[in-house]
């Protein structure tokens, strides 16, 4: 369902089929819709069997990186150690709001998925880390967990299976970086939310130094459907010529678009149809200029590039961007791309955890140059500086926040060079910004006066 709009016939609603249905929020309502059947079924299986089903289904991480979920789970062996499951519900990527809706409308679906996954990775304890701004989803999730405990779905004897499954809800304090898996673990442990150096990877030493699996909300919410209907059922979603990307994916659409909202489509859906048909295309009298297809960290596409894309991991890679988290941000002809990119870099500069030199200084410096260009005080030298800074910021830090800041700048400069050039033209006609060197070609203060 193209929540909050009516579902479009070309959507494939699985996770989103109960969005907007208040009854699905309650335990009774969820059970009436077939809820917790998958968990019941799973608890009777061997964890490794579940890992195999998920591996066979082709489910990949929906948080952004697209790592095969079954493979990730299979790193967790019955080694007698304490294992942890962490559910990443920090959803802090700008432009993404799919997990929020999953938690708002189908909290039991997530509880079921988390419990199932915890069992599948030999963990007894799972943490759901929800960003602090999500007040309503936190309320829904807490209510669902409480109901599940009261009904004996969670606890020492989960669904009468004799297995222990505990779920704790942890409220984040609103840092973007806490959506990075190792920073999230630090935050859960009560430390400053700084990403950790890898190796060791979480599967070896994660939360509290124990083997940990960390999955996105959407990934975990999909798992019960896979266990219930089987791997083959899940594989039917997707294009026949790309078995690497299967299943359904929620896309959050925002920006200058007729019908913003969440849409669930089978992977491999043509983006042109998605944009113009499902989402209704541009606002009346306007035309779309650019699209960020997977949250603010992925390269920007021009409309033409985006229209040729197929919506799956490989399809977006083919046009030089990434599926990412599925947060589609649309810009139309009224938007100033320089200003938009400057705003994005400002976000990353604000959210950098300040560990790595390149990120701490680079994001802030990029922002200051971008904002100067945007304000009309740029010089053409700035383009080279920006690209060089971006190069120095990419692939050299602990996590990818630094790369994420460089990405829109590099793709923006490449694809919307004309808008940047136009800003420089303005600066030629201006006097120097106080405290700054005079831009080449600009009249001096004295001659202006």
């Amino acid at each position, binding site marked *: 369902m193209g929540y909050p709009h009516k579902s479009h016939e070309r959507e494939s609603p699985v996770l989103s089929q109960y969005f907007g249905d208040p009854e699905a929020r309650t335990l009774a309502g969820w059970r009436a819709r077939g809820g917790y059947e998958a968990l019941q079924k799973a608890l009777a299986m061997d964890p490794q069997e579940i890992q195999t089903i998920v591996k066979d289904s082709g489910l990949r991480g929906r948080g952004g990186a697209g790592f095969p979920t079954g493979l990730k789970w299979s790193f967790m062996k019955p080694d007698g150690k304490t294992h942890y499951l962490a559910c990443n519900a920090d959803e802090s990527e700008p432009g993404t709001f799919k997990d929020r809706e999953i938690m708002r409308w189908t909290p039991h679906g997530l509880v079921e998925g988390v419990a199932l996954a915890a069992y599948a990775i030999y963990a007894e304890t799972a943490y759901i880390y929800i960003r602090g701004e999500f007040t309503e989803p936190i309320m829904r999730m807490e209510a669902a967990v409480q109901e599940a405990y009261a009904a004996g779905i969670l606890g020492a004897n989960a669904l009468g299976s004799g297995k222990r499954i505990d779920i704790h809800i942890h409220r984040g304090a609103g840092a973007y970086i806490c959506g990075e898996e190792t920073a999230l673990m630090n935050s859960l442990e009560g430390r*400053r939310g700084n990403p950790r150096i890898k190796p060791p990877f979480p599967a070896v030493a994660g939360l509290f130094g124990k083997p940990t699996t960390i999955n996105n909300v959407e990934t975990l919410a999909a798992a019960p459907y896979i266990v219930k209907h089987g791997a083959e059922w899940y594989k039917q979603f997707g294009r026949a010529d790309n078995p690497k990307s299967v299943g359904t994916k929620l896309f959050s659409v925002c920006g200058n678009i007729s019908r913003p909202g969440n849409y669930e489509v089978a992977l491999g859906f043509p983006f042109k149809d998605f944009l113009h048909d499902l989402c209704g295309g541009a606002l009346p009298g306007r035309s779309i200029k650019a699209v960020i297809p997977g949250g603010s960290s992925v390269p920007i596409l021009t409309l033409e590039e985006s229209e040729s894309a197929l919506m799956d991991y490989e399809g977006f890679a083919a046009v030089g961007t990434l599926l990412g988290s599925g947060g589609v941000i649309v810009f139309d002809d009224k938007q100033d791309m320089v200003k938009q990119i400057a705003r994005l870099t400002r976000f990353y500069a604000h959210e950098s955890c*300040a560990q*790595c030199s390149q990120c701490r200084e*680079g994001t*802030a410096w990029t922002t200051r140059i971008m904002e*100067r260009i945007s304000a009309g005080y740029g010089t053409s030298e700035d383009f080279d500086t920006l690209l060089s800074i971006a190069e*120095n910021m990419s692939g050299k830090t*602990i996590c990818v926040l630094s790369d994420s800041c460089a990405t829109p700048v590099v793709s923006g400069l490449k694809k919307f060079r004309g808008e940047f050039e136009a800003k420089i033209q303005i600066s030629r006609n201006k006097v120097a910004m106080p405290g700054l060197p005079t831009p080449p070609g600009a009249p001096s203060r004295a001659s202006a006066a």
Partner: protein
Amino acid sequence: MVNLTIEGRPASVPEGLSILEAAKTVGVLVPHYCYHPGLPVAGVCRMCLVEVEKVPKLAPACATSVLEGQVVHVHSPKALEARKGVLEFLLINHPLDCPICDQAGECELQDYTFAEGRADSRLREPKRFTPTEDFGGDVLYVTNRCILCTRCVRFMSEVAHDPVLNVSERGDRAFIGKAEGEDLTNPWAGNVVDLCPVGALLSKDFLNKARAWELDRAPSICTGCSQGCNVVLETRDDVLVRLKPRSNPSVNHYYACDVGRMSYRTFNRRDRLQQPQIRSGRGLQNVDWEEALAAAAKAFAGRRVVVVVSPNLSNEALFLLERIAARTGGAGVFRVSQGPEVPLPGVPDLALREERAANATAARMLGFTEIGALNGVLRDGDALLVVDDALVNADASDLSRASAIVLVGTAMPDILAERAAVVLPMANTAEEEGTLTNLRGRVQRFMQAKAAPGVARPSWYVLGDLLQAMGGTEQYYLPSDVFAAMVHTHPAFAGLNYHALGLMGALAPDAMATVTAGGVN
């Protein structure tokens, strides 16, 4: 062992070692800021990025373990370019106030920028400004110069176990914050100044005193307590201005406590004895050395000599004093001042010790008796030889039985001003060389850092001459001669060689047995 190639040099190192440490073993320095061998790895400065063949991304050398057959390039164009980028980032908001910065000349940011950084700046915006903060204790935090390597934060939380410091804020607004209501008054907090690779954490004591390149440096041993921390004494124009720890993994790792750091001041005292003196009718008169030594020997002739020594004297001085006491059938005593023991929790067997003297261990090994008060030490007719003991809390009645009092010392104790018959000026620890024995029996050398005032001579020199004036036959030309005689005479020091001690010292044989049993090395 793992075999790999670093900068074309074959290295064979233990498994699990980082590339950075492995590079050190073959003489290659990987530039770095946040890495410190005494602290947990943070991997945040990204300065130590190196190129490892067959690995697509540059690897942080501090956080990457060596692998068999690895080929590492530290100075390849790709690695150099990455470091140049880091240096540019670190400098954009750095005030570049080297001319007024205490760290200039010993600053790693300065050094690496000079070696590998850009010659110009591409920053066109105004620099960020953050005010300087007094961290309390001896530490000043100059926020603008900070590169957020977090060495100080990690030291305080992981080594001092006193997590007063943190990284506050995010992005380029981040700074080293101090816990609300706390001050950096931990007795080991001074180490953060040494750990800081730039001029962000400064010692208030050393502030604006000297430029790093004006300093002369001498390896020495801290005399603040019996731990025997290895230190460097730094002088400017023959005045001590700073004491810094010198790494010795067997004693103090990389650290020194604040009591030790401030102890350098005692070596600068101005009321020093500068000239040999003898008492005549008109009080103390300056004389030459021969006359003074002869007078001292005469005062001792036929007497039992009771020696009151400072437990900070060198092994050599204590040995010669033991000889003097033995020769005259006398006795040797010493007193030690005490203070609370303050351990550094993150380092085994490192503490500011209760015993606030550098060489009480050797005094005991050489047969000196520890006493609380001076009364009862002297018998009627004994001669008293006081060697650099300040005679604190002594009163006239304690000394009244002495037939004559001879002082060998650096300064005049008040109580002896009217009583000493002969005064022989000696150098203090910073002005001579010799050895000290720490509480674990480690014998360590210290070097001369500055000149002695007037005609004061090294303690072993004065006491050697005194022994000769009293009829001794041995001649000592160097402290190593005295040391050799001590090793020869006292089995407790058997097998030690002055020159083989090096700068790390060696355990005395007796100590070795007890220390091995206790599991300490």
